[in-house]
């Protein structure tokens, strides 16, 4: 009798758990339904724009800067140019992947803009004042 009672208790517990799970699932789906779809779309569009234009600017800045560093370290200009563009393409791919992996859009925008700007300024200074561009 005791065993039967225990089994009944277990069954009751199972059924309550299931109903709780179902409730939480329903809550989640309701929340999802209420999530602003347009916010999501805007987020994707912004990420795409950063991925296209931001990473392009970053890749160019990075290619120029790494080429300059290589020239400073005595590597031939043509070799520095070719090595830097290959590196820049790989960097661009990794950056685009990071953009779509990261959750924080502000962080993405800030990192891409700041790093591109800093590199671009460095390139300009090195090209103009150090006379690296011929």
């Amino acid at each position, binding site marked *: 009798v005791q065993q039967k009672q225990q089994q009944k208790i277990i069954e009751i517990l199972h059924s309550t758990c299931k109903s709780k799970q179902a409730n939480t699932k329903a809550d989640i789906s309701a929340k999802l339904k209420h999530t602003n779809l347009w916010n999501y779309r805007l987020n994707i569009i912004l990420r795409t724009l950063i991925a296209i234009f931001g990473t392009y600017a970053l890749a*160019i800045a990075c290619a120029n800067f790494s080429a300059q560093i290589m020239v400073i370290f005595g590597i031939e200009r043509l070799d520095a140019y070719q090595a830097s563009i290959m590196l820049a393409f790989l960097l661009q791919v990794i950056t685009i992947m990071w953009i779509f992996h990261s959750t924080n859009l502000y962080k993405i925008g800030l990192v891409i803009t700041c790093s591109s700007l800093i590199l671009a300024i460095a390139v300009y200074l090195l090209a103009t004042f150090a006379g690296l561009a011929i």
Partner: protein
Amino acid sequence: MRIDGKKEGLRQSMSWLHTYTGILLGWLLFAIFFTGTWSYFRNEINDWMHPKLHHLTYSEEESITTAFNYLQTHAPNASSWNINLPSNRSLALEIWYREPAQGGKGRGAFKSAYLDAKSGNEVIVRPSNIANLIYRFHFELHGISRILGRFIVGFATMMMLIAIISGAVTHKKIFSDFFTFRPKKGQRSWLDAHNATAVMALPFCFVITFSGLVLLVGTIMPFAGYGIYKSGAPARTNAQLTTNAAEHIQAPTLNDINKMIIKAKTVWNFQQVSAINISNPNTAKALVTINDNFSDKDTYLAQSSRGGRSLQFDALSLKLTKSSNNNADVSFVRQIRNVIVGVHEGRFAGVIVRWLLFISGILGTLMVATGLILWVVKRLPKRRKLGTTPIAHRLVEIFNVSAIAGLSIAFGASFWLNRILPFDLPNRADWEAKGFFIIWFITLIHASMVNHKKSWLQQLFLATFIYISIPLLNALTGGSSMWHNILYGKINLLNIEFALLVCAFIYGTALWWMLRSKAVISNKTSTITGGAKC
């Protein structure tokens, strides 16, 4: 990317990225891959398109003599001469030369001709530009400005590279995927096919995509070298092609060229001279470059722009001035670039390597195609639940059919157009190109008007029929038959016709598989419904 903004794992986010980079540019990528794959047989397609050349066979010696005499008579003042000798990749004896620049500035007009080495006369062939169209479409599209076309292709290439890397990240068991194929399982089967082709062609696809970006860098990243070059990129070093009438002397003579060839063959072990280039002929600055079809490791480490080994001689002293085998001066970075670009262009490749590149290209093309189809198949349950087909899904279906089967039909049909269009049609080569795009457009209309499955079946059937019929068409319309090609060892024609038959087999298999799956489904339905089928 999750709609609720919560963080997700790398694999999940990469899966999302892989899907959308793939679907948004998948059709363009398919076209780029398809045309690029066929570009490995560009010379062969070009020869196929000129049936008058199929029956010509010449020895190396008579070809050189005829070409040299023709150039000496018709273009003594040209700034450069090029002689392309018949080889494994080219049937014809072809010459081209650049006329002297008007007023000594810029570059002169470019003229070319096919020669009959026996009679010394020009061979008048039907104007055809399909091989070139396919090749150029691969990297600059058609009907838009070259720069814009290259930009679009460059952008698509970058998306492809992202799709490849994110796809590789998405896979948990990349190597077991390679050996897994579960047929008749709907979405699972398509996913397995996509994985298997992707894993098989992964190294090739990565190198080909990355080198594609490197090749287009001058257009897509014009300021990548601003930091070290004021112009933004290294200056191109074009050979100075100038002629000076005052110093006109006959250099080189035919005898000189023969001596250089003997030297190339004995000292450098040249197997088959494939081309001879003479810059500034009949002047004291004349230089002769002799090219071989054969490439070795040193050649493609040292250069990527031309296939095969090359030796450059001074036409007056007959001294060797440059050798392609000399890779001592080529840095490690340039060697890496030369190798990856060399693989992309495949100019060094002999018959076996060319076939390997072609098969890898087909695998890459199939990878894109299965990925596009997978997108539709994956969303079928959702559509069944909805009870209707969303417009976006229908558009993807239509574009899938016309991009995959439609492009294949258009390409196969261009071989037919080559033989159907009248020989003397004004702007014949342009009409061939227009025909290609018109047929492609018709397949799009067809796909949009007919039921999705029917459109696949009909277009695959047509593609299979067209590709199978091409060797027969060639034999019946003045070209050489496959049997003749086998007998006389015309490897380039055999290559293109076998390649077309391989594609016919792929389309035929897909068609058979679709018909079979349709039969299985209808059998199952009839069993379930029982007597209702009456």
